């Protein structure tokens, strides 16, 4: 990796963090509706994974998807516009926080029903296998999703059909407010992959370079036609499940303890002390991010609302017949 690559990863992580902080404020001001699930604390996971992918690799994730949106290169202003429900958002204001996607960037959503996107990921991989392309489908999901039937059906199918899928379980310790230990028969989630004879490993999701290195390595084995691989990435969300979370299920001590493992702080130290990047350079980059966020909010707020007559657009591709 070149210096620019290291800085790009830092830029993405800081951008996600600030974007989410800004989104939380806009939510409290009533400018963002619906549910809002923040990625704060988990930035190293999607940043590490996606920085290792090739352009032909598809990515699909669950509803905590703003980080992925930034990582695949969607401008912050467009993400913000979708959060505000504007026409300039990727989904033209039809999807909102939980349904971001950009097929041009091989980002296939943003799916809000827990686990439902796992079978779809298998199908995306099937499409590439069928056509003889060498893309890998990267499917990210939470620990909670491994307890629903979709997980087991999809993971089993991926092995039976030797599909090019990289399963990435973001184990942030809680499915909403229920801890992994209270919800899953095995708390080391990767062991579930053993049941399907799928190669697996666990990596520290607070260390972006560890995630990146693991992803880079295993993506190539999947690309080589050896079938699916399962990565469990341990992480922690510093904020509640969504904005409406009273957080009765965990002690503030626990949160504080994990906050010492802040993935951005850890990576910043790596840049300063291992990569010998000057602090002034990082500070400059952090200032740029603040400007980017400010411009994103301005762009989103000044973007037009969808026109009422567009309500019925895109129900069908073939609109020659009515609803």
């Amino acid at each position, binding site marked *: 990796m070149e210096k620019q690559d290291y800085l790009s990863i830092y830029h993405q992580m800081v951008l996600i963090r600030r974007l989410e902080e800004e989104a939380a404020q806009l939510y409290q001001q009533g400018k963002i509706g619906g549910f809002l699930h923040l990625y704060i604390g988990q930035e190293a996971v999607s940043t590490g994974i996606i920085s290792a992918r090739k352009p032909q690799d598809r990515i699909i994730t669950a509803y905590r998807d703003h980080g992925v949106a930034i990582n695949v290169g969607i401008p912050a202003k467009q993400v913000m516009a979708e959060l505000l429900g504007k026409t300039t958002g990727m989904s033209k204001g*039809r*999807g909102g926080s939980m*349904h971001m996607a950009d*097929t041009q960037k091989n980002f296939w959503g943003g799916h809000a*029903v827990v686990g439902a996107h796992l*079978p779809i990921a298998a199908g995306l991989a099937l499409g590439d296998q069928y056509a003889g392309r060498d893309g890998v489908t990267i499917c990210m999901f939470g620990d909670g999703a491994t307890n629903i039937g979709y997980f087991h*059906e999809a993971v089993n199918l991926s092995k039976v059909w030797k599909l090019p899928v990289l399963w990435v379980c973001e184990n942030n310790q809680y499915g909403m407010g229920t801890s992994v230990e209270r919800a899953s028969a095995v708390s080391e989630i990767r062991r579930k992959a053993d049941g399907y004879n799928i190669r697996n490993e666990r990596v520290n999701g607070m260390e972006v370079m560890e995630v990146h290195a693991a992803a880079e390595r295993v993506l190539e084995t999947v690309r080589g036609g050896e079938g699916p691989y399962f990565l469990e990435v341990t992480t922690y969300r510093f904020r509640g499940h969504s904005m409406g979370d009273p957080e009765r299920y965990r002690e503030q001590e626990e949160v504080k303890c994990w906050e010492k493992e802040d993935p951005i702080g850890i990576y910043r130290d790596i840049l300063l002390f291992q990569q010998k990047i000057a602090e002034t350079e990082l500070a400059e980059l952090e200032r740029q991010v603040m400007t980017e966020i400010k411009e994103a909010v301005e762009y989103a707020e000044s973007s037009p609302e969808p026109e009422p007559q567009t309500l019925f657009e895109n129900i069908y*591709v*073939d609109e020659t017949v009515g609803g």
Partner: protein
Amino acid sequence: MAKITMREAISQALWEEMERDENVFILGEEVGVWGGSYAVTKGFYDHFGEKRVRDTPISEAAIIGAAIGAALTGLRPVAEMMTINFAFSAFDHIVNETAKLHYMFGGQFKVPLVIRAPGGGGRQLAATHSQTPDAIFAHFPGLKVVAPGTPEDAKGLLKAAIRTDDPVLYIENATIYQLRGEVPDGDYTIPIGKSKIYRPGKHATLVTYSKMVDFSNKAADQLAQDGIEVEIVDLRSLRPLDMGPVIESFKKTNRAVIVEEGWQSFGVGAEVAARIYEEAFDYADAPVKRVAQKEVPLPYNRNLEQMALPQVADIVKAVKEVL
């Protein structure tokens, strides 16, 4: 014109579309080596091979989910639910993903997917395997739902379903696979979302679809002996629902009976009757009547089951009541 069965019509449509387009493939339980639970895909595996005729595990959610994913990559999957009763295990993927992806992501996603699902009662399979839940699926904007009642429509509608870029639920009735009828020679399609006059008449309008077209026709034959000429409108598609020929016919006959195999409450008949009243209230000379399944889980016992299902005699009686 050749006279063939419903089974042959469906099979021919699949075969011809697979010959025409390399991107069309079949997946489902026992579609390959076995040849299809209802022998619709008999011979396909040997001819097209395992890549395009894919046996799946018993995983309905994964079948539909994988089909969605493959469709997103540009393939044209035809996914088979062994029976429509098992489609409930994939209900989320059918109504929550298939029907919504195009709209929810602002038109970015296309899901050219066909789901074949045989249903219907009368085979002594008891309550869980005998349902005609067509109306439930027709409830969701974004999904197209067709249910042909003749070999001509079965073949033409399936070809249209495979060729459209929208997802289509193609509902078959498992008790009419042997029903014979003439089909045009060569390649043809029947437009989705177009109902038609199946049998002209002037005294009353019978609105129906799928297996009940044949039952309604038998009722019409009996009524003709008494000099009563009923006009039969075959809906063919439930969504989009084409009320044009229904309203036109009703304005002429001023009387209507709606015949469906599913339960009456919240059913196809309820929808059609409401639309008749909304669009042609002033033309009504009698209350619209419905013939449908009795409100009971279908029993195993042959006599009881037949009591619960709509019969030709019920249709004759209902027509006489509106005259």
